[in-house]
């Protein structure tokens, strides 16, 4: 077996590992609200979320994969070293921010990694301005849309709630939360797994393993969704142990409003081919629901950390990827 093929296999495995870690990290977002409202046990919730992470492989398109694969940098300059550097940049930045507790986005880290490695490899001309602008704008737009949609939905549900007995309403929302959690996991699965699909597809395309036209093979789709679902399952088991200590109690209607509005925001971005942070979008949804009760009750420290993450993630992961590319290129 030649070394080039071995390197491609290693990078594909690294990309799937990145996807697994993404599911592992984000498992809490997928199950937190439904567990805190006691609709499902932690174990049931984790299996529910992982199932819909995987189901998202079917029928939700590959617009985000196309954006990552050929919408951020020119495919003509992509090679194994560039993708390796981009993944290392994203993974290193994710680990650093995980250690210091910043809620960063793996998606933005991956885009920063691609940009940093491409800048060192071929200069600024190979950066596709339109793709970077759309993605950068949605870093802010997506959580804000989660916030706005959650506010309107929570207010509408409050009006509805006032007309029916609280016990009846709570029972209805407990069942509806099964749907909203499933929708959120679908959105998380499709938007996040597609980033890995895009990275693997562009690597295969530029190394001549994909034929003459850029596309995402079915095995790439299935393995990316399987990796994120497995990550959710693995992360979820860890959450099972700590759930009792960490989760704040939410009303079922609040959980439903936050999840449904975030799911809609993520699915909208997915359909228009824009990679977004699922973590920051549901944070926007939860802040929106909290704001309808009392604005001062919102934990603004979380919101401030998100803003810090917005500013830092792309430049920092780009810097790590740039240094990595410079080192790998000399080997």
């Amino acid at each position, binding site marked *: 077996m030649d070394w080039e093929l071995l390197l491609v296999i290693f990078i594909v495995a690294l990309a799937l590992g990145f996807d697994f870690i993404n599911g592992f990290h984000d498992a809490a977002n997928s199950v937190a609200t439904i567990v805190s409202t006691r609709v499902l046990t932690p174990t049931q919730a984790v299996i529910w979320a992982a199932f819909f992470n995987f189901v998202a492989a079917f029928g939700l398109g590959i617009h985000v994969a196309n954006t990552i694969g050929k919408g951020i940098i020119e495919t003509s300059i992509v090679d194994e070293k560039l993708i390796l550097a981009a993944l290392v940049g994203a993974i290193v930045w994710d680990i650093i921010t995980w250690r210091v507790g910043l809620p960063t986005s793996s998606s933005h880290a991956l885009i920063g990694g691609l940009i940093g490695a491409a800048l060192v490899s071929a200069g600024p001309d190979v950066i596709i301005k339109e793709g970077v602008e759309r993605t950068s*704008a949605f870093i802010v737009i997506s959580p804000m849309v989660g916030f*706005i*949609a959650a506010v309107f*939905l929570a207010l509408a549900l409050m009006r509805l709630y006032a007309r029916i007995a609280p016990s009846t309403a709570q029972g209805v929302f407990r069942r509806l939360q099964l749907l909203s959690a499933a929708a959120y996991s679908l959105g998380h699965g499709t938007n996040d797994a597609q980033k890995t699909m895009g990275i693997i597809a562009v690597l295969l395309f530029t190394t001549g393993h994909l034929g003459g036209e850029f596309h995402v093979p079915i095995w790439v789709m299935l393995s990316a969704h399987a990796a994120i679902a497995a990550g959710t399952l693995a992360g979820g088991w860890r959450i099972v142990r700590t759930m009792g200590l960490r989760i704040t109690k939410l009303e079922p209607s609040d959980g439903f409003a936050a999840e449904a509005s975030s799911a809609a925001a993520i699915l909208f971005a997915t359909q228009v081919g824009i990679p977004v942070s699922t973590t920051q979008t549901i944070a926007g949804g939860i802040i929106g629901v909290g*704001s309808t009760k009392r*604005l001062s009750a919102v934990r603004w420290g979380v919101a401030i950390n998100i803003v810090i993450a917005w500013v830092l993630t792309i430049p920092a992961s780009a810097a790590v990827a740039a240094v990595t590319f410079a080192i790998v290129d000399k080997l």
Partner: protein
Amino acid sequence: MAALVLTPIFFALKLLLDAGLGIIFVAVITTGLLLGYVLRQETTR
């Protein structure tokens, strides 16, 4: 109820995105900030 609230919001977003990235950016941020201001007024009374 959720569909009644969320569907118009996302149709509006699609229209704004088609109109231009700058337009959707300014519209969403302005709406979010205004909504935050109104909620602050209403919930701190």
